[in-house]
């Protein structure tokens, strides 16, 4: 894992002092709320319906047990004993007092954490593959590139007042576990025919009101020019992105309106200019960062066999563990989706347990998934039963990874001032419905995503089944969408037709899964069947 040196520490410490000073000037009336707002946003403080929310950065979703303990302590000390893991691999606290914020940032800085640029119109926390460094299919660990971009984008003097927020994801395998092409910039580390590593740049993707899949604008940027290319992409956006309408200000609109070809031409011209300027870090810096992401000391010849005599354990192993590059190891997913629970929430007690289990069984490392679960990336198969036993006792043993119960849901109208409808209760009713009818397992992979408004924080465009909450004459109404995917087979979901009320949407989800069960052919996922048979059979079942 990456470790701060004296420079990184000095920067987060300076940021804490800067924020304290800004808060003081706000209280003294030297800053108006309008002037203070972007400053607090760039420190993760967002005003919700009932209180301030603080979003803490977890760079590329990686943290150690000490950091997870610190997050638990913050939940106890400053919030209501829980936190919420987000779709961008961060954690947010929903009940924060503004006057505590400086102290929380100081507590975070003690464990090499921060809330820098987790909100606001700036380059946000860089996300990545949650199985990085463990996945059998990656060509290299993507996190060193994400860390280099973290440093480059932190306190960037030119790109801190962009037209709108800017999200970057970095992956390094053909399997996309980070929704890479639905980011403002998606980077895939690739190998060319000569065996050299480079970065493919996909620019202008996103969800929100106008979902778009990012086109590839450069298939191979050499790694010693990565920062320069990113700088060129951002400069063209900063200069030409729309500022007249916040709903048209994301880079996807610029790329769409300008055309990917013209945007690319301008980026290439800026890139050529910046290469002359020399803004790239020394290549030795990338090599220095890489040393922090070397493999842990895996046990050679760790046993492959798992005792499956306990049927509940066997189901969990089949559902929640994922192939590892090292023999005798797996990545184990801790589901934060208990039946009837709030997707992504964890209590301070659960955080401490996960931290301790990471220390005992996963080389002191945890990951946050964008699907709002936690990964222990490197677990010996021989330790799985002990791990599962501890998780199960704490209510963390739900065997439902990638099933209909593994729902992404935004905070919705329970917390968010932008929402039109509640998301969390819909997620709760759906997981309860499928747990009760016993179909969760037989439906297989089924990604269900719920947003409480068109801003799409719950990724409904990318759900095999998506749900969008809207306000219809003062009543919550839920539209159903089918056929989306955030993975390497990326696609945007389509709306089925008229929306449903709170009970109707749960029935509607069950109805479309019935169509799938009747129509599916061997080995097809819900998404595959939908793509083969199209929308009509689903519409007929829903609307007759």
């Amino acid at each position, binding site marked *: 894992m990456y470790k701060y040196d004296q420079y990184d520490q000095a920067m987060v410490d300076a940021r804490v002092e800067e924020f304290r000073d800004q808060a003081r000037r706000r209280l003294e009336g*030297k*800053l108006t709320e309008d002037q203070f707002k972007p400053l607090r946003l760039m420190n993760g403080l967002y005003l919700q319906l009932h209180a301030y929310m603080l979003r803490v950065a977890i760079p590329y979703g990686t943290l150690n047990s000490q950091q997870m303990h610190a997050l638990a302590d913050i939940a106890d000390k400053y919030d209501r004993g829980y936190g919420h893991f987000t779709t961008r691999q961060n954690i947010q606290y929903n009940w924060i007092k503004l006057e505590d914020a400086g102290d929380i940032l100081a507590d975070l800085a003690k464990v090499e954490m921060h809330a820098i640029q987790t909100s606001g119109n700036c380059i946000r926390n860089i996300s990545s593959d949650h199985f990085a460094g463990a996945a059998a299919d990656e060509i290299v660990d993507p996190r060193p590139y994400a860390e280099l971009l973290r440093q480059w984008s932190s306190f960037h003097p*030119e790109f801190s007042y962009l037209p709108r927020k800017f999200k970057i994801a970095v992956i390094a395998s053909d399997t996309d576990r980070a929704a890479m092409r639905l980011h403002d910039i998606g980077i895939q580390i690739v190998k060319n025919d000569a065996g050299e590593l480079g970065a493919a740049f996909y620019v202008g993707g996103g969800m929100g009101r106008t979902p778009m899949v990012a086109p590839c604008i450069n298939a191979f940027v050499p790694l010693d020019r990565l920062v320069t290319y990113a700088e060129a992409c951002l400069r063209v956006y900063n200069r030409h992105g729309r500022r007249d309408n916040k709903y048209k200000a994301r880079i996807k609109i610029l790329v769409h309106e300008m055309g990917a070809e013209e945007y690319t031409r301008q980026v290439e011209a800026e890139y050529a200019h910046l290469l002359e300027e020399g803004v790239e870090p020394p290549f030795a810096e990338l090599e220095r960062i890489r040393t922090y992401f070397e493999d842990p000391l895996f046990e050679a010849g760790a046993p492959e066999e798992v005792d499956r005599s306990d049927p509940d354990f066997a189901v969990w192993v089949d559902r929640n563990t994922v192939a590892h590059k090292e023999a005798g190891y797996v990545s184990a997913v801790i589901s934060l989706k208990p039946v009837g629970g709030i997707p992504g929430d964890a209590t301070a007690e659960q955080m401490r347990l996960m931290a301790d289990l990471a220390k005992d069984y996963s080389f002191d490392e945890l990951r946050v998934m964008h699907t709002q679960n936690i990964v222990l990336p490197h677990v010996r198969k021989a330790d799985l039963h002990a791990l599962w036993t501890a998780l199960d006792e704490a209510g963390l043993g739900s065997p439902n990874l990638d099933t209909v119960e593994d729902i992404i849901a935004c905070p919705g109208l329970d917390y968010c001032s932008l929402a039109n409808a509640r998301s969390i209760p819909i997620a709760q009713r759906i997981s309860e419905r499928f747990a009760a009818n016993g179909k969760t397992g037989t439906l297989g992979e089924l990604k269900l995503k719920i947003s409480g408004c068109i801003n799409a924080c719950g990724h409904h465009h990318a759900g095999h089944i998506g749900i969008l909450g809207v306000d219809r004459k003062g009543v919550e109404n839920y539209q159903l969408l089918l056929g989306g995917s955030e993975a390497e087979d990326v696609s945007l979901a389509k709306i089925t037709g008229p929306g449903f009320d709170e009970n109707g949407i749960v029935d509607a989800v069950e109805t479309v899964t019935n169509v799938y069960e009747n129509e599916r052919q061997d080995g097809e996922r819900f998404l595959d069947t939908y793509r083969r048979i199209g929308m009509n059979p689903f519409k007929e079942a829903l609307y007759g």
Partner: protein
Amino acid sequence: MAETLRYRDDQPVDHPAVTVDAFLDQSNAAAVRIEPGDDARELLPHLGRLSLVEVNFPAFGDGRGYSSARILREAGYEGELRAVGDVLVDQLAYMRRCGFDAFEPDQQLDKDDVQAAFDRWPEVYQDAADDRTPIWTKRHA
């Protein structure tokens, strides 16, 4: 009228800045004002006769002026680069890094706050238009 903060030793230009269009039409102006939508690169053929470029920030959240400033410095412009308009304490350090060396805020800024803003960052992560050495260069010096 708030005081102009100037971090240069030369004499300020004694006539008002003209718009980019006016500047491109006439040959005797030495001071020009860039609006957020203007293309700073239109000035590049004429840098030799410029002594003052004002970059207007009608609203502090519109960050186009940061790119305009860097583009001018990258092209070798050494005259005064002045941020004018909605220029606030918390943007000063980033503006300085992008090449601004004078500030003409709409509202008077507290001197101590200004000094604190410029003293804030012990290090910088990335290259910009100032002469500060990025952390990643220091690490491998």
